[in-house]
């Protein structure tokens, strides 16, 4: 008997698949992708069955190959997700996401009186994880914010 295997979200030729995202976090990652300025075609699946997580989200971005730095930025929202970089329907690279220690030049500091808003410097945050909450501390104004506030979610 031929095994019937059906993909939950259509396979892509070339691009990046972010899998094993805890259900609910996919929207945040999408929003993050827009922050990164992508105009690629994106296919998403929310609340798909997962052996490991119960329910998971999945995101496929066509014609865009993520590097490890971008993966670590995404790790803020789904530290246990995996990133598969696909070329010609085959996995070329696979990264496990993790919470980054530092994020430079990705987000603006939410403190409107922070010097980074009117001087020629990149924003820079150190990331601290405690009791499942992730906070970002601005290197310049030294204020701490939850990741959702920094990402504007």
């Amino acid at each position, binding site marked *: 008997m031929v095994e019937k295997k059906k993909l939950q979200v259509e396979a892509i030729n070339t691009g990046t698949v972010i899998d094993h995202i805890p259900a609910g976090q996919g929207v945040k990652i999408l929003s993050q992708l827009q922050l990164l300025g992508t105009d690629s075609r994106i296919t998403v699946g929310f609340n798909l069955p997962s052996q490991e997580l119960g329910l998971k989200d999945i995101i496929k971005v066509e014609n865009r190959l993520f590097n490890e730095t971008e993966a670590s930025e995404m790790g803020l929202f789904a530290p246990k997700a995996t990133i598969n970089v696909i070329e010609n329907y085959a996995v070329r690279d696979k990264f496990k996401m993790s919470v980054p220690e530092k994020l430079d030049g990705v987000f603006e500091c939410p403190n409107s009186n922070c*010097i980074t808003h009117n001087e020629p410097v990149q924003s820079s945050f150190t990331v601290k994880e405690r009791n499942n909450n992730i906070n970002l501390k601005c290197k310049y104004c030294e204020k701490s914010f939850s990741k959702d506030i920094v990402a504007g979610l």
Partner: protein
Amino acid sequence: MTNSLYQKHIVSITDLSREELELIVATAASIKTSPRPNLLAGKVIASCFFEASTRTRLSFETAVQRLGGTIIGFADGGNTSLAKKGETLSDSIQVISSYTDAVVMRHPQEGSARMASEFSSAPVINGGDGSNQHPTQTLLDLFSIYESQGTLDGLKVAFCGDLKYGRTVHSLAQALCHFGAEFTFLAPDELSMPDYLLEDFVDAGITFKRAEDFYEVAHEADIIYMTRVQKERFDETEYKQIASRYILTAEHLKEAKPNMRILHPLPRVDEISTDVDKTPHAYYFQQAENGVYAREALLALVLNESI
């Protein structure tokens, strides 16, 4: 041996180790008893106050002159190229630091001193960046605590008033984490110590509790660190109800330990009643004077390999 503060930027109290804090306090004590009028001989220090200040600017400028250095600078940013011609702070600092041996600066925006340190060719000393840091205030606080208690270790320190927005409170509490202090907090709920700092205290193994009134605080503390509950944080009726509970009077001090001293970063408005001034516990004017010695110590260490 080169001291570890030589040519170092002094931006945030959290950049300083326990050993460095102790070195500054010991140097301040030594300069207070034996003045060193030549430690900054031949040095030019920029005093850049983009925001008005009385005690910090004047005590820095006094410190430079008492050590034999010279000062250039401005007391108000309104007349600078930043305000008049739209120059960036980073450009201004690059130029000013090329003229001088160190740059003391105060600026109304948070993070300005850290940013300046990345563009400056001379050490930057933060005299206050918005609501963020004011490390030299903490150094003079530590020196005053050491001078009045004979130690920095294992003291019971009570912080009273505005613990949410008070940068002096935050920095002093962070510095005392190196010395195994016990904290007591007396503040309106709306102005309590921020959670992210409480987490830091837990990480540092510091024990802390909340108190209900000044009687409870005065009974146990070695140091009471007072700050003002500012009117603009509340509406008028709310303020009237709250403010009276956070005014310290001589009556509150009857059960205080003999060694207990009261500190306040000043200016005081009415949060410490003037009848406290005459008690042996008042130490805020000596503390303000110590600003000169603490800043002398810091400048001397930043600008001399060894002293």
